[in-house]
């Protein structure tokens, strides 16, 4: 009995070392996901990008992910576990991993980190994000055209600049079509909670909104809008199957090309810490097909998309008027400076709501 146990143990050890050896020559790339890979939103898009990465460079790399890692005390450990498992390039795909990523990055200077949507960087820690406000601007144009009641419903996640700039871009665009457009905002205080998101959508529709937009990750709001016969925009991913007659378009996070580019740099030894903030002209995000709208609205959307991509149209073109009626200082020449957008913590004029914490 004891002998067979020993044999078993030896077998286990051997099996372990063999698999380790075959993997040693491949670059190990790790991912930390906020949600489950089946959230059909934020995490799902990162997972699709990882799959694209494997398809492109699968013979040179081995990828690993940890899903559903909360942005609390467990995050630092999860990241460090990936480092200790031999991953040399690690993507931490949510804002709340910023401090944990930085802590682990300082501890392991030879490992490279890529943190999504944050603002803290280091020699071995890059950040990457997308100018989603450009997509929001296009959505604002469509929403104002399509809304009969003149009231838009907006489900916010957290009042951080990324979300606030999205709301402002939406309204600035909508005002060019209908100067009296109204927006109702509900802060869900979560990125992913289908129950809460559905409740928020119901409440917004009850308040008269007939176009629902969201900065949360699940398709729940799309489903509610579909049930009630309203219109809605998807978020992060293609959500048309949840509202074939409802979805106008969706801002699609398309991280794949960025991931491939960064992993290639790592393989070539040219990786260095940088801050990537890509717009429609890069491939950080894309717009889903414009559906459920008349051709003239579709044309407005497509023209705006072309103008933004070509750099001819900027959603935050000066002058931008703040909620209090005062003009916002224009630090970027003709437009608000990138820094002002990245740190945006004010509403523009025409939003009848108080920014939380102001």
């Amino acid at each position, binding site marked *: 009995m004891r002998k067979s146990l020993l044999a*078993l143990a030896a077998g*286990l050890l051997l*099996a*372990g070392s063999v698999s380790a050896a075959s993997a040693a020559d491949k670059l190990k790339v*790790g991912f930390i996901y906020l949600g*489950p890979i089946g959230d059909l939103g934020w995490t799902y898009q990162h997972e699709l990008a990882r799959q694209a990465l494997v398809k492109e460079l699968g013979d040179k790399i081995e990828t*690993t*992910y*940890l*899903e*559903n890692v*909360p*942005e*609390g*005390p*467990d995050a*630092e*450990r*999860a990241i*460090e*576990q*990936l480092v*200790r*498992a031999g991953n040399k390039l690690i993507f931490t795909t949510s*804002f*709340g991993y910023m*401090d944990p990523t930085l802590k682990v990055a300082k*501890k392991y200077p030879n490992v490279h980190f890529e943190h999504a949507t944050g*603002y803290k960087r280091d020699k071995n820690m890059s950040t990457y994000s997308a100018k989603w406000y450009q997509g929001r601007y296009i959505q604002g144009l469509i929403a104002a055209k399509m809304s009969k009641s003149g009231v838009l419903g907006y489900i916010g996640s*957290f*009042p*951080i*600049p990324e979300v*606030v700039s999205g709301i402002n871009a939406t309204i600035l665009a909508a005002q060019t079509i209908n100067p009296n457009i109204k927006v109702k905002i509900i802060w869900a*205080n979560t990125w992913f909670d289908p129950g809460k998101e559905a409740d928020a959508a119901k409440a917004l529709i009850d308040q008269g909104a007939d176009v629902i937009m969201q900065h949360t990750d699940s398709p729940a709001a799309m489903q509610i809008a579909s049930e009630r016969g309203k219109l809605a925009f998807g978020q992060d991913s293609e959500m048309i199957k949840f509202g074939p007659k409802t979805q106008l378009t969706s801002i699609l996070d398309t991280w794949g090309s960025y991931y491939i580019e960064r992993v290639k740099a790592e393989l070539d030894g040219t990786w260095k810490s940088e801050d990537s903030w890509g717009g429609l002209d890069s491939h950080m995000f894309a717009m889903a097909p414009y559906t459920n709208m008349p051709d003239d609205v579709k044309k407005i959307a497509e023209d705006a998309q072309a103008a933004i991509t070509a750099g001819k149209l900027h959603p935050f073109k000066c002058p931008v008027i703040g909620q209090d009626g005062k003009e916002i200082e224009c630090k970027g020449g003709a437009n608000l400076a990138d820094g002002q957008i*990245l*740190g945006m*913590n004010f509403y523009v004029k025409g939003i009848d709501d108080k920014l*939380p*914490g102001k």
Partner: protein
Amino acid sequence: MQLVLEKRAERSNTIALVSPLIAIGLTIVTMTILFAILGKNPLLALQAYFIAPLTDGYSLQEIAVKATPLVMIAIGLSLCYLANAWNIGAEGQFLIGAVAGSWIAVKTQGTDAGAWVLPAMLVLAAAAGALYALIPAICKVKFGASEILTSLMLVYVADLLLDYLVRGPWRDPNGFNFPTTAEFDPVATVPLLIEGGRLHLGSIIALLVVAAAAILLGRTIKGFEIRVVGAAPRAARFGGFNANQLIILTFAVSGALAGLAGIIEVAGPVGHLQPGISPGYGFTAIIVAFLGRLNQIGILIAGLFLALTFIGGEQAQIAMKIPLDVTKVFQGILLFYVLACDSLILYRFKLVFPNRQVARGAG
């Protein structure tokens, strides 16, 4: 022929000791089958879950870090449960402790406050946790309100208070509106025990708490009262023990420990106050308390074991690409077997043959 559960004449002490082992054995068998179905090598998977985390210093530290709040809260809860007082709101007391302690950290931020900051944070957190736990205790004693409901509902109040503070008054001015305080100053941070590691002073405090609770229950009259009031309320009344006073006491102690665990987590591994500082520690600790059979050493082992399943689950995800859901299934199966096997303490299996039963009845 049928299999029936028959009540034992008295509880079996042998089974009480052996049943967790049977439960773990059954869990391993079930998981082996599950891994095989998933097409994973069961031996490698079990090795990743149970053995690998125990073989290097880093993982051992992480297990201790994860177990620290669980053990500390569960010890307090065990005192309540032994005295028949049902504190379900340790999560809320944990959060209030974290908030109260953080108040000092936030207010002294950037000043040249001395070494008094951390001790003051710990004391204030424990006091706040105790006071918060006294609300349901007093409602129970004075008005007969169900402490299960009131303590549970106060969890949400604490959660929302924390949320309000980090979004409003205590928000990091340089944090781009994200709901978090600034990182605590070094004087407001729980010291690390090992350079470059994550093991912190809180783990030592948790061990002291375990020892203190063992002494309280085993060697003092108060501890005796707690056990008698819980096990034999009528006898306790005849003995002149004041059950209400014990509800107040045990609630206060468990609230203080939960509050202490809260500030240690915030000033330790997290480093700042933010929403989501607890992945449900206060509720998981209830499981730890019962897994450990409300015994101090049992709780220590149960806390470490549960922590092991978390760390092992992560390593299995990395090494074997086993999905997180399997870890959750694994934890669920384990609890299921533990509870099922516990019924063997008071019951036993018996094979019943109908015809013989008749014969015996006739004889």
